[in-house]
């Protein structure tokens, strides 16, 4: 109850009530979870403008976290025919997913327009639910761009093809649907503000899978993986799937963070497209980079997850995208399932009262009949 009392103190009379604040909007999830003082929220800033689609993040993640390869599964081993993406989507066995999107020039024009519109007057990631009081129009970076302006000729026209790449990951939402619905307490909020599954507590009910607005979490298939195929009369080497049958997703490398290390994906990223650090620094860096790109005329750039007033209270993993979120397969306006809980609760209360009235009136009426 400490956090509840704090929330009441913080917001005071006249503000939103504490239970509304807990379920949506801007907040510090670490304090909300009762970790107390002295903890800093950690997060990613994935700058897709410098992603080269090498997929090293996918591999490093799987190596460190011992996530099963999909070649062993029935759907593995086949090309998807979706540009260079053969991973498809995030899930129990893919905690990082690099999307590849090929576009014609007209789509770049559209992206530039939509990106420019977002930045005037505000440049927060989500197209809706902006904080009206925040002015965030990009301004040129302090140092300027040192050399670009020294060349007289600038590129003319638009490229015939644009190839977007973006490494997606669990958002570690401020208000995490998966965590809120978990009946066993297997999902918990860490001291880094991240959301992690405890595999040994999870009972595999799958409520979290349906509650994630981003489709991140999945339940891992139970079974056997083949480590080496059978050959020359020798039997195949196999092993039981690690954490089979339970919910699995990115832990933001919790086991690395507790030792002061960088998550595997950020550590391996050759171009620093994936950055890791204090969440507030990540958001600041993202804003800075956005301003820089807009100053260079790349108005198609926009942030995703940097708005604490969006449907999930902002995300721990912040992205700089070069087109609308839908283009990358991301929901444009994600809303945590618990967001409408207070309203639903109120509505349910009203409905319940009304029904009670009806029932009572029936009794009354019945009495009259008698």
């Amino acid at each position, binding site marked *: 109850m400490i956090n509840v009392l704090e929330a009441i103190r913080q917001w005071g009379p006249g503000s939103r009530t504490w239970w509304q604040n807990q379920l949506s909007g801007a907040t510090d999830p670490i304090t909300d979870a009762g970790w107390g003082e002295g903890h800093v929220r950690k997060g990613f800033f994935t700058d897709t403008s*410098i992603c*080269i*689609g*090498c*997929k*090293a993040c*996918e*591999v490093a993640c*799987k*190596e460190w976290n011992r996530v099963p*390869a*999909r*070649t*062993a599964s029935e759907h*593995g*081993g*086949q*090309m*998807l*025919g979706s*540009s*260079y993406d*053969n*991973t498809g989507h995030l899930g129990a066995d893919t905690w990082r997913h690099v999307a590849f999107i*090929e576009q*014609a020039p007209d789509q770049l024009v559209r992206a530039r327009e939509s990106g420019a519109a977002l930045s005037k007057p505000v440049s927060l990631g989500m197209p809706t639910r902006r904080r009206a009081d925040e002015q965030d129009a990009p301004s040129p970076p302090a140092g300027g*761009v*040192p*050399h*670009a*302006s*020294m*060349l*007289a*000729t600038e*590129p*003319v026209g638009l*490229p*015939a*093809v*644009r*190839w*977007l*790449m973006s490494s997606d990951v669990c958002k570690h939402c401020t208000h995490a649907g998966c965590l809120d619905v978990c009946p066993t307490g297997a999902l918990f909020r860490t001291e880094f503000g991240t959301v992690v599954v405890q595999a040994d507590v999870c009972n595999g009910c799958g409520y979290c899978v349906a509650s994630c607005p981003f489709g991140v979490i999945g339940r891992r298939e139970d079974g056997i993986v083949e480590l080496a*195929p059978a*050959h020359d009369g020798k039997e195949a080497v196999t092993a039981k799937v690690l954490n089979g049958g339970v919910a699995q997703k990115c832990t933001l490398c919790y086991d690395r963070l507790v030792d002061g290390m960088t998550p595997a994906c950020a550590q391996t990223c*050759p*171009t*620093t497209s994936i950055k890791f650090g204090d969440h507030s620094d990540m958001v600041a860096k993202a804003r800075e980079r956005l301003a820089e790109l807009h100053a260079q005329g790349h108005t198609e750039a926009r942030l995703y997850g940097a708005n604490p007033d969006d449907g999930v209270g902002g995300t721990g993993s912040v992205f700089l995208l070069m087109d609308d979120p839908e283009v990358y397969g991301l929901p444009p306006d994600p809303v945590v399932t618990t967001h409408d809980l207070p309203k639903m609760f109120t509505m349910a209360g009203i409905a319940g009262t009304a029904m009670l009235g009806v029932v009572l009136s029936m009794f009354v009426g019945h009495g009259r009949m008698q």
Partner: protein
Amino acid sequence: MAECHPVGFQWVTEAKLRGARVIHVDPRFTRTTAQADRHIPIRVGSDIALLGALINHVLSNELWFKDYVLHYTNATTVVSDDFVDTEELDGLFSGWNDETRSYDMSSWAYAERDDLPEEAVDGDSGDDEVDAPDPVDESGHLMSETSRADTQGSGGPPLEHARIKKDPTLQNPRCVLNILRRHYARYTPEMVERVCGISQEDFAYLADSIVQNSGRDRTTAFCYAVGWTQHSDGAQMIRTSTILQLLMGNIGRPGSGVMALRGHASIQGSTDIPTLYNLLPGYLPMPLAGSSDTLAQYVDNIASTKQKGYWANADTYAVSLLKAWWGEKATAENDWGFAYIPRLTGAHGTYQTVMAMLEDKVAGYFVLGQNPAVGSAHSRMQRRGLAHLKWLVVRDLQMIETASFWKDSPEIETGELRTEDIATEVFFLPAANHAEKSGTFTQTQRLLQWRHKAVSPPGDCMSELQFFYLLGQKIRERLAGSPLERDQGLLDLTWDYPLDEEGEVDPEAVLKEINGYQLTGPKAGRLLSSYTEMKADGSTSGGCWIYTGVYADGINMSARRTPHGGDQPLEHEWGWAWPADRRILYNRASADPDGKPWSERKKLVWWDEDAKRWTGDDVPDFPVGTRPDYVAPDTAGGPEALSGTDPFIMQADGLGWLYAPRGMVDGPMPTHYEPAESPVVNPVYGVQASPTRKTFRRQDNLFAASGNEPGAEVFPFVFTTYRLTEHHTAGGMSRWLPYLSELQPEMFCEVSPELANLRGLENGGWATLVSPRAVIEARVLVTPRMRPLVADGRTVHQIGLPYHWAVGGRAIVTGDSANDLLGVVLDPNVNIQEAKAAACDIRPGRRPQGAARLEMLAEYQGRAGLTVETSQEAPERLEPARGPQPAEQVEEEA
């Protein structure tokens, strides 16, 4: 670069964030393109036309860097009156011999001065081949033709004479710069549009970008990889960029240069201390039978002692190498053991060797860290060749297809090979991986980086070092006491390395041997600090002269790992760069002729008048006390002959070569020729393809007709092969790993939506590809990243084929090999295969199985009327005469 060198691409990303402009010239739209400011798609194999037009652009608009070019290049050197250019001979240079299909290079030489004293003249430096008989090597190529290229090291070849005539006023029409102007005059933006399919707007953007970003204040860099090398005129493609970079003053300066991006961790190292048949360590040539009987002859052939620069000291490098290998047994009396080194009798490249296998001339074969059954051009020929061996040793991390070809290669399935008929005894030996052994990697920047062993290799796995040490021991035990002369070289080798606690050779002892020692005198046993300390009198040793200094003062410099290389701008405290830890080669050129930096922004090395020496941020790549205004006497030779303005210290005249009077067997100036198989008739000259390219007229190596020749329509499309980020070359290090395999699980071909329409191909479906050599299948990826180009009025469809997959073996993912489709046609300078441009047909659906697959190939070959002469004659002049044709016509045919 982002595609194949993603880790190195971090520096491009950083440069870009600091404002650099990145232009990607590539037939394909790759991960690099996605990050580039502009993509300039180019028709495969037309790079010389583009680069030649850039040269023409800077020359005709007088945009070249005059102070740099006049002082540091051979622009003012006058060329012999005997030289006749391609402009007059419609695509051939003077000296062409139709019978031998090669050039006599003597007419390309510099003009001679006649006002010099006799002692300045060096009679016939390295010209023995001219008088020697002209035998034919095993592949039917003239020895003199192959030997010239095969025996040249990293420095320029020796000059015919030292009496160089110059015209600083550039009035003489025969001085190099004027010859260059005339040669490239026909390489116009219009010609680029015709040949390369590049718009004039794109060309202007590229040209302006380079010009505006070059000069005193700015520099431009060219990065290339096998997209330039793997052509029948690949060496000349790189030469063309070098000429352009010299004209723009972009060599020897920070942010400048022509950068070869190496495809593996230590490919640079494997040419420095070579796994190549034609080189000894440090780019010393392999001696040639007949012309290198004595050490003196051999050294004479490398360089004249009268020429400028450090190759004049080749005798000290050679004798030190012999001392490193044979120690006490190398004496002045036995010519320092020079007779122990085998002699070349011709070109013994991969492809010549495989053809020799097919003729049962090769008994055994070692395959280390390669998978030629998948990774070499015409991999079908490779696999068939392996079946003729008596024994084969494969050392690898996995049971690769080269080791299992005898039971599961595609040829077993088609019935061409039968397991019971193959007598090859295959030894598969497991190898240690990079984390299981110590040693150095030498990367793209010539940087040696020491790698410490993390864990010991499991089971029987061992490092190459340990393997060859033990193999050497066993062979020497077997030969002990042999009276045969041929065995003495092996028995006399120094083969005594200290062993560590696990009984393994200490790799640092090997690095010390490579670095070299002082052998005699009071300092005997001291590790050398520099190759300039080497002597030809047997008092020093050194296994690779360019690496001398890596162990200076007994410190393993390659193991330096100060974060970010310390405080110095060039990060000298990280690793060690050969030679002498110079991070930028020829850096004397970073200062003007007076020794002052060209600009504050681009300063690197300069003359310190007070200290009377060169100084700066890098180790000066120049005699440190030679004043900028020093003029060397005509009678001097070697480093003393370098004047203060001769930055190119490995060249025979100390200058950057805009024109190569010797050394390139296919011409002194790069010239556009079409690939061996091309749908386009050469729009630049009458000669269609490189006349000197090495062809192999064999029934198993047929080529498609080019241009409008009969049968050309049977193979109407161009394909190019390449790598993907997700896999490593022939797959030995990726197709066995689940985490990599799942990222690109299937062999596919990349086609444009236009070609997909034309041929009825569906994204995600199957396609069959047919070349004159093979039939393969692949999944289809239809992508707007592939675009048809219009060249010379003709629509050219290009198909992209990654080459990582193979059938058979125990890999997690399998698929047909793109390299099966390729034929063998080689660059005459370096014997590299033309893997980036070839002809094929594509059709929807899967390929036939078994014998039907061969029937399909035969049907195609018959329909195209292919013979061993098709596209293998030289010089070919194709009909009809040049001229644009309507694009629609070709599309309909296709």
